[in-house]
């Protein structure tokens, strides 16, 4: 039996157009549901893509060492928590750094030491700033583009610093601040380089480089009674396939430094991405469930209006049946009408969702929402599902109408 799909579409269009107001309102219900799901999915996958791309840049040959016991599973907080939180009890020392550097397959190792305290230039003291001490190797492991100047190196003066572009603006009102000075911990630093804007505060270094001043480890130690308290050591192996061996040797050497105690953890690319991706997935699943409720409300709207339509057109159903329409024909006629409404809501919701996601990310967040076919597929798939689910009952009800009863009805 032919299903007359094209005919049903023409029919649905005709009947939806003749009730423009209520069609619009019904579609709006679905649009809102799909839009919220699109916002959630695009932002969460944008966030998880950000972390993945960050780690991807490492090229598979990077491991990081952090203080703290590795006994529990790695948590997202291990990656994104502010380094300051663990600063007071760091178990990593300068000795660890030196022994790691001595491992033959290690190409470079750089410490990260976060220092508390604020930065001041003339009268400006930015609220959001951080001070990190490291070695010149840092830039070999985390490639950074410089707007101007250079990164700290072995021959630069101790009292020089490299700052992020936004920090430069906050301190001096310009990105061109080479040679300008700021004060912290009673020392005056001269700016020798400005790091290009990164726009990704969530990364494995746990520092928002845009708001950071980088100084050398030597002077950093001076601010901490001459002791290096490292929150992280970045290690780069000579090639990606040597990384596993490097991790093993690092573990052994630090363990022997720490008298056999494993009060540190070593993470490689996969470890860094997995928990954050899992967390983003969990967050987006939770939020999507909430959004699904609004979608159910939209679906109920469709069902409601379809039931009204079926009642209004009882007589038409009787006529169509008398003229040779089978139950299948009638079912499809009404089902397609509800599908047209829900898919229109799906398409509009997807577009509206992306606009909203962009508006949100531009005004509150530092990353862009992700465009993927998966999200488009989910938006359209879910809207078709809603249309089918909530359109089926009214359609079957329409098809089951007794033609004689239906023809007897006046309106």
């Amino acid at each position, binding site marked *: 039996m*032919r299903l007359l799909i*094209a005919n049903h579409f023409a029919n649905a269009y005709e009947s939806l157009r003749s009730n423009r107001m209520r069609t619009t309102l019904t579609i709006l219900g679905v649009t809102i549901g799909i839009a919220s799901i699109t916002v959630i999915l695009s932002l969460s996958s944008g966030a998880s893509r950000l972390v993945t791309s960050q780690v991807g840049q490492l090229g598979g040959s990077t491991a990081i060492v952090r203080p703290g016991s590795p006994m529990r599973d790695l948590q997202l907080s291990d990656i994104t928590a502010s380094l300051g939180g663990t600063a007071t009890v760091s178990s990593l020392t300068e000795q660890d750094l030196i022994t790691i550097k001595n491992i033959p397959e290690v190409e470079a190792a750089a410490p990260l030491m976060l220092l508390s305290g604020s930065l001041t230039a003339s009268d400006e003291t930015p609220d959001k700033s951080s001070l990190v001490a490291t070695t010149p190797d840092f830039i070999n492991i985390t490639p950074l583009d410089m707007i101007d100047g250079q990164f700290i190196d072995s021959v630069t003066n101790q009292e020089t610093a490299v700052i992020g572009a936004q920090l430069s603006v906050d301190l001096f009102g310009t990105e061109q601040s080479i040679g300008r000075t700021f004060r912290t911990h009673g020392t005056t630093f001269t700016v020798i380089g400005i790091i290009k804007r990164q726009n990704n505060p969530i990364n494995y270094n746990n520092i928002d480089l845009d708001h950071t001043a980088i100084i050398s480890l030597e002077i950093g130690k001076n601010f901490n009674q001459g002791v290096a308290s490292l929150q992280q050591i970045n290690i780069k192996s000579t090639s990606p396939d040597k990384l596993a061996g490097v991790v093993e040797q690092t573990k052994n050497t630090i363990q022997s430094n720490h008298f056999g105690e494993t009060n540190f953890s070593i993470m490689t690319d996969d470890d860094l991405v997995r928990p954050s991706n899992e967390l983003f997935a969990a967050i987006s699943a939770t939020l999507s469930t909430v959004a699904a409720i609004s979608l159910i409300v939209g679906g109920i709207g469709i069902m409601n209006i379809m039931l009204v339509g079926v009642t209004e057109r009882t007589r038409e159903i009787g006529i169509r049946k*008398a*003229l040779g329409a089978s139950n299948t024909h009638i079912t499809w006629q009404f089902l397609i009408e509800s599908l047209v409404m829900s898919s229109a809501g799906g398409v509009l919701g997807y577009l509206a969702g992306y606009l909203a996601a962009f508006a949100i990310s531009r005004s509150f967040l530092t990353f862009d929402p992700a465009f993927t076919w998966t999200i488009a597929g989910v938006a359209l798939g879910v809207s078709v599902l809603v249309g089918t689910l909530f359109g089926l009952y009214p359609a079957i009800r329409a098809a089951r109408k007794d033609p004689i009863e239906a023809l007897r009805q006046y309106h």
Partner: protein
Amino acid sequence: MKKAATTPPVIALSGLTKRYGVGDATHTVLNGVDLVIEKGEFIAIMGPSGCGKTTLLNILGLLDHADDGDYFLDGRSVDTLSGGKRAQIRSSQVGFVFQNFNLVPRLNVIDNVALPLTYRGVGHTKRLKEASKMLATFHLSEREYYMPWQLSGGQTQRVAIARALVNNPSIVLADEPTGNLDSRSSHVIMEELADIHARGNTIIMVTHNPDLTSYASRVIRMLDGKIDSDTKVPRAQKPETAPKIRLDSLVKPVKKSGKKKGRKK
């Protein structure tokens, strides 16, 4: 009962029974109807209200099921047919004309006429062509894109008849087709039906109006769910009883008066 070996009758009923209600409230609407209708007959079914005429017509048109008895359509029993199959037969073999016209109010005249073709899977353009051709035979070409509410009663019923005939059914079932029309329009409609009967269609018409039986070739009177009398009308009689109004003489004046009526509405 007799079943012709060569060509089976279009419709053969034996002991057809239909009841409504349950228990004490059971009401037998059709009580053992036996009827054989041959191809090309024009049957008028008469009888008081509630005697089961419409129910019989609905069962003949496969819109309703009988509770007992057999119904052979073109020699085949329809009792065991599935809903889809019944719909298919309605679409290909049965044309309905209703007392209250029953055009789909949302669709214009030509779409209404083309509707039965839709369910036979005819393409859009071909559908409209066929419908247009059919409307032309009813002198309604100028009304193709009118909406149903813009037509007079007589025109509406002619559209409905055009729709009933568009897929070339073997039987046309008319339930009081002139019930809502004045006598002049009634005769026009009857002339149309007589005309399609003359072309070889089988017509079964329910009516209250004894005047109209003069168009039929056979008159069946029903009483309390049974066939009371069944008389064949001799063909020679027809021109005498209905000589006054012929279709051709009516066409032009009717079209004009139809327009006026349309405006009055």
